[in-house]
């Protein structure tokens, strides 16, 4: 068995570009030909992550906390090898299972069955393994006959059921979760929670973002606190949560 690990060294992520009205060919030519110095007023530069050093080893469960826009989701996407770091290096050992946006990445005109197959393939399952697990996944979604319908007829809750069922049917090594606890209606949310807990137990490494401290205490021994793209604190969960709460109650 390989030992899973995630090592980030001095990772920066900088979003750079022009504002939407300035993205065309015309403005590109204008910038290239007419002006040498880039007009800063129409360009943005956001340092989403700055100098992140983080080592997560086999068996660790890590929670990410921080205010909205602190860089939690960006950090998860770096760990998933979706965002290549602007500077620094990332080393990932183990098969990553990202659980991010559950409402995108569907083929709208294809049936629920086909979408299960596509997501399965993209999550690294073999075609045979998918066919084998298909009944189990279908049963978990409780979508019944709706699986024969093209997914454009689905409600957002149904999308979540489908995506959640596929994502949690694989055997994860590194599990990255971005705020998906509130999935679906009451009956599904309960079921999803149980499945999620089982799933989280299986992962060799778990990293997730949350604003729910109970969840954090239940699952994570270690918590990383992000603020404005930088790590403020990294340590045992109860200690970090205490500091985090103090900081934000004092601010009020």
């Amino acid at each position, binding site marked *: 068995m390989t030992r899973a690990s995630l090592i980030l060294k001095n990772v920066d992520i900088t*979003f750079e*570009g022009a504002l939407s009205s300035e*993205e*065309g*060919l*015309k403005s*590109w030519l204008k910038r290239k030909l007419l002006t040498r110095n880039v007009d800063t007023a129409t360009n943005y530069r956001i340092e989403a992550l700055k100098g992140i050093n983080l080592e997560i080893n086999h068996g660790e469960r890590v929670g990410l906390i921080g205010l909205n826009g602190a860089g939690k989701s960006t950090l998860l*996407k770096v760990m*998933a*090898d*979706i*965002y*290549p770091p602007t500077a620094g*290096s990332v080393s990932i050992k183990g098969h*990553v299972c*990202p659980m*991010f*946006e559950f409402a*995108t*990445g*569907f*083929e709208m*005109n*294809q049936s629920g069955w*086909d979408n299960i*197959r*596509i997501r399965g*393939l*993209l*999550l690294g399952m*073999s*075609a045979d393994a998918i066919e084998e697990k298909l009944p189990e996944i279908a049963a978990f979604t409780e979508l019944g006959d709706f699986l024969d319908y*093209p997914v454009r007829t689905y409600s957002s809750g149904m999308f979540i059921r489908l995506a959640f069922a596929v994502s949690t049917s694989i055997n994860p090594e590194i599990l990255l979760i971005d705020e998906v606890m509130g999935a679906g209606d009451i009956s599904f949310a309960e079921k999803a929670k149980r499945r999620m807990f089982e799933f989280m137990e299986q992962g060799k490494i778990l990293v997730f973002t949350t604003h729910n401290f109970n969840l954090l205490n239940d699952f994570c021994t270690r918590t990383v606190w992000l603020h404005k793209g930088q790590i403020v604190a990294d340590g045992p969960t109860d200690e970090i949560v205490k500091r985090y709460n103090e900081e934000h109650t004092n601010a009020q």
Partner: protein
Amino acid sequence: MTSVTRLFIDSTRALKMWRVWTYLGVQDIKAKFHRSFFGPLWIVLTTGFFVTGVGLIYGLLFGQPVHEFLPYLACGFALWGFIVASITDASATFVRAEGYIKQFSYPKQIYLLRTLISSVIVLLIGIAVVIPVQLFFNEITPLGWLYALPGLALLIMAALGHIAISAYLGARFRDFPHAMAVMLQMMFFITPIMFPIKLLHEKGLGFIYQFNPLYYLIDVVRHPIIQGELALPENYLYAGAYVLATWVAALLVAYKLDSRVVFLL
């Protein structure tokens, strides 16, 4: 890890995941004709109507014998459609896959191959239309179809180069597909598809196709199918050189943009 090695590793990983991109490519075709009555038969119908309509009029206009001209036209039309798709449709490759790219860490090259698969399927259906046309005029040479295979391989490789260039540039410059559509429309009139090359020769306008790389790509497939013999050796050479050029350009574009694609969507 430098971006060149990363690109190389990603591309080989993508090739190995053939199950994923063939599946997605075939699904794209199914989705395209989803709930339509004729389904993929529309590809046949489009070619069929174009060939009979244009063929009869232009055949008369250029004084071409219909039994030679119609198969020539059908073949050229299918090949041209493939080239156009590999440039204009392909520019939406990454844009269309946004939901996947932002969620799964798969090598982005699988989406290029997915586009290639669906365009090749359309090409094969389109080119098959030539068979009944040839049978109807009793002009078919089965050996010629075999001779078309090396040319077809070159054409498909060139298309992969086109798709890569268009996909990356299409994600960066949203004007790209529109600009290409205009350019290809003009190219359509100067590429020998609706007229045979000997007409250009007679008028001393041979340069119009001789400097057109797309002509060579088409000729290496069309000439064997229509004439039942291999195309001129130098035409394979020109087509091959063009493939090489597109691949070099594709590598440069990918090298520049690969790591930025996810931020551009």
